[in-house]
């Protein structure tokens, strides 16, 4: 996983992480998440895929739906939470 700080350089990724930090139980599609964070769906999709690759999010794939959720990795979640507390 990259340095957490680097995720927050991208505004959409930052919004996604703030969203999941606030709503860790959420599972939603790229379209749904883009609605919650008020970002473009395409950009959101791109960031979601990147965050899945980095292990910050997990994806649940079926033939018709791709949904995204926060990682269950305690250490990653804790680090992000800590970082968010510092920047807000």
């Amino acid at each position: 996983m990259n340095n957490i700080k680097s995720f927050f350089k991208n505004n959409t990724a930052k919004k996604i992480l703030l969203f999941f930090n606030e709503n860790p139980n959420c599972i939603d599609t790229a379209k749904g998440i883009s609605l919650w964070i008020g970002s473009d769906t395409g950009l959101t999709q791109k960031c979601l895929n990147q965050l899945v690759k980095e292990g910050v999010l997990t994806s649940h794939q079926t033939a018709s739906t791709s949904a995204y959720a926060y990682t269950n990795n305690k250490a990653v979640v804790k680090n992000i939470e800590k970082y968010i507390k510092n920047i807000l």
Partner: protein
Amino acid sequence: MNESEKKAKYEFLVKFSKSNSITAFRKLCSKVLKKSRCAFLDSDYRPVNFVGKECNHLRLGKYLARLKSSPLREYMVFKCSCNRVCLSFPVIQGSSVYGHVLFIHLKKEPRKSIIDAVRIFMDLALKEFQKEQELTKLYETIRPRAIALSTIHTIHRLLSSTLNMDELIERIARLTLQVMRSRHCSIMLLDESRKYLIPKAIINLDKEIPKTDPQYKKIKLGVKLEGKVAKTGKAVFGRNVVCVPLVEEDVIGVISARDKTNDAPFDKFELEILITLAEQAVIAVKNAQMYEEQEKMAYGSIKTLAALLDSKSPNTFTHSDQFVKMVLALAEAMKLPREDIANLHYAALLPDTGKFSIPDEILKKPGSLSSKEYDIIKKQHLESLKIIEHLEFLKPAMPIIRHHHERYDGAGYPDGLKGDSIPPGARIMAVANAFEAMISARPYKGKKISISQAIKEIEKNKGTQFDPETVDAFIAATNNPEFENIVRL
């Protein structure tokens, strides 16, 4: 006024003093009073939110308190300890005085008309603040619920996209871990006797639990937490565990989540989420169970039909079990979608129904056929397929049965299809069919040859009789010891 009322009023004043409406109020007041900074005092004249540096507001508050023993309901113009003009304005909500706004060190005593304007600004600010408060409340209460609702909707979509029970149960368990933020999840279904719970999926984030693990032992109804929940049909909610029944008229199983990833206790919101997820899961499980039953009925019907055909002429219209296994193994190797594999399975059980009305003398003729005989085969092949076309569930399998005598180069029958226009299932069946014919000893199919010779023969016809991709998968599969067991007739 009791302590809780005081606290509520104080909190109201703190929020009000920091609200956007106060920013607008200040701007308006700065126009008329030539002073934008103001301080807030609660109904006991204690400072709430300092804005301003000119004066010691705490002292001023005490000074005001001495002036009036009861909360002021009207404005007051007075001079502070440094003998400069100050204006105190009450913040009134309904019949209560919540506190005061204090403008300190004004240049001169404000006129009545200015006081009236400030009063109007205050009313507007309070109304705006109330709207702000309502919106905040809506945001705080509705947004999490809307997000939860959207999550449930997404879960519904994820669950309804499969009818395969094993896949579904695993998916429910993974989604439960996700939404409950838990480290452990188990799903158990009642057996047919309804006396035992059978663990169907147990997932632990810290370690993989094999099906042979004691945790997978069946649980008697009424025993352990899960057994009790299944027996009573009531959810159990504790610090580290949430267990809810799966109910569809009767209890059909239970779903439980244990140990949150952040070690926090489960809350009622999460219980609510798991109950809703369980409702979705029940629908999906019931659908999968119905699909399984339908599939069993379909296989039963096909097998009955195959047995009937076999009784007329053994091994003519059907093939061996090995043939079916070989076809399915090839389909798996070629990563065909699950639904296509199921249809291929149906087709493999009845591959040669098309031969039904072909005369025996042609069907069992040793050696090659004349062009006239070949024409009869093509015509009768299509005629015979009409026997099964009324079986609705066989419709997706029909193209496979119809076209598995096509050749990749277009020289096959009945339609002379070529290349990728031949259904993938039919291309697989063509390879398996030819292979089985070569390695089995049937009087009308010529001499039996060895498996290695048959493999060479298949490879030789790659790209002409057979689809190259299927042949590659076939060759790769023959190197698998498991495949060798399948093809040994």
